[in-house]
């Protein structure tokens, strides 16, 4: 298990760049951060001048040692916290952080099972950490990603995930609009899509699913119907429906 800093740490925003029109990558420097495993998350706490506080969880897109962590945050239009982190937080501003958190939804280089990752929307964030960890240790364990998103413009980390040298193959799936010349039409992932695009039960994969709660529920139900054992599926629900 990863060592965890006790209590709340302070992180300051040291770099940021847009990922999509609604999302940005934020890199925070966190003195005392003990490093983190791929797939872990952090709780971010914001405090208003009158003492009011809001806490939200964010997956960490980076993995490994060091005091810098990268978060990738999608703005929910009516959200309380995400618009602040995407639009308002400025370089040098600080937030409080608790973590790294979670030991269940992680991938560790010593794991030997083939890995299937299935992301819905911003649910790709912990998988970016896993693909980075996979590449950085030169893992030979098969790992592949199925990334379901609304439109091509909504992709997080597209360049990185589509690099020819990537050790993890990404299959893109669009639910709202497809790129020009795309061979499939847009639509929600079906059982047939999952059967075609993911590692089958015979390969005994460990399958990780992450995204909005409704997405995770639908995909895990479909995988169980395809014969995957419930214990071979790990899920991370981000909330929403």
């Amino acid at each position, binding site marked *: 298990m*990863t060592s*965890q800093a006790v209590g709340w740490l302070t992180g300051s925003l040291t770099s940021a760049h847009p990922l999509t029109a609604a999302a940005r990558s934020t890199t925070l420097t966190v003195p005392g951060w003990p490093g983190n495993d791929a797939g872990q998350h952090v709780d971010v706490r914001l405090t208003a001048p009158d003492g009011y506080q809001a806490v939200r969880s964010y997956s960490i897109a980076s993995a490994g040692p060091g005091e810098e962590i990268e978060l990738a945050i999608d703005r929910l239009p009516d959200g309380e916290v995400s618009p602040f982190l995407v639009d308002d937080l400025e370089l040098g501003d600080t937030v409080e952080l608790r973590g790294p958190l979670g030991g269940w939804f992680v991938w560790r280089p010593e794991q030997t099972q083939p890995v299937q990752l299935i992301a819905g929307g911003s649910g790709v964030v912990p998988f970016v950490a896993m693909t980075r960890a996979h590449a950085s240790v030169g893992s030979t364990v098969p790992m592949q990603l199925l990334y379901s998103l609304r439109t091509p413009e909504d992709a997080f980390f597209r360049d990185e995930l589509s690099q020819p040298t990537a050790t993890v193959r990404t299959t893109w799936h669009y639910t709202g609009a497809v790129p020009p010349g795309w061979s499939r039409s847009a639509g929600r992932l079906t059982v047939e899509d999952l059967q075609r695009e993911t590692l089958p039960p015979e390969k005994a994969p460990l399958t990780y699913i992450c995204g909005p*709660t409704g997405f995770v529920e639908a995909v895990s139900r479909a995988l169980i119907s395809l014969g995957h054992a419930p214990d071979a599926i790990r899920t991370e629900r981000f909330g929403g429906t």
Partner: protein
Amino acid sequence: MDHLDGNVLAGPTTDLFAFEPTTAQGQCRSCADIAALGQAMVYGQPMGFVARCRNCDNVLLVVVEHAGQKSLNMRGLRWLRVADPVEHNRI
């Protein structure tokens, strides 16, 4: 807000447990299912965290954080089994 995975419990239970809670195995008092806490279904946010059995919905554990205190109830767990920290996994 719809329900989340047991993983989200990692934050609120940090100071209560000196071990990683989400990988600890526990047995449901109601249906005897054995699972990692990370596999529980978590409801009740933002009032609190209500972790229910993935198999029978029995309440396994409740955590409410307020004013620098945490209240915990684990009545729905028959037992909790915690592995010793594995040093070689440390970063």
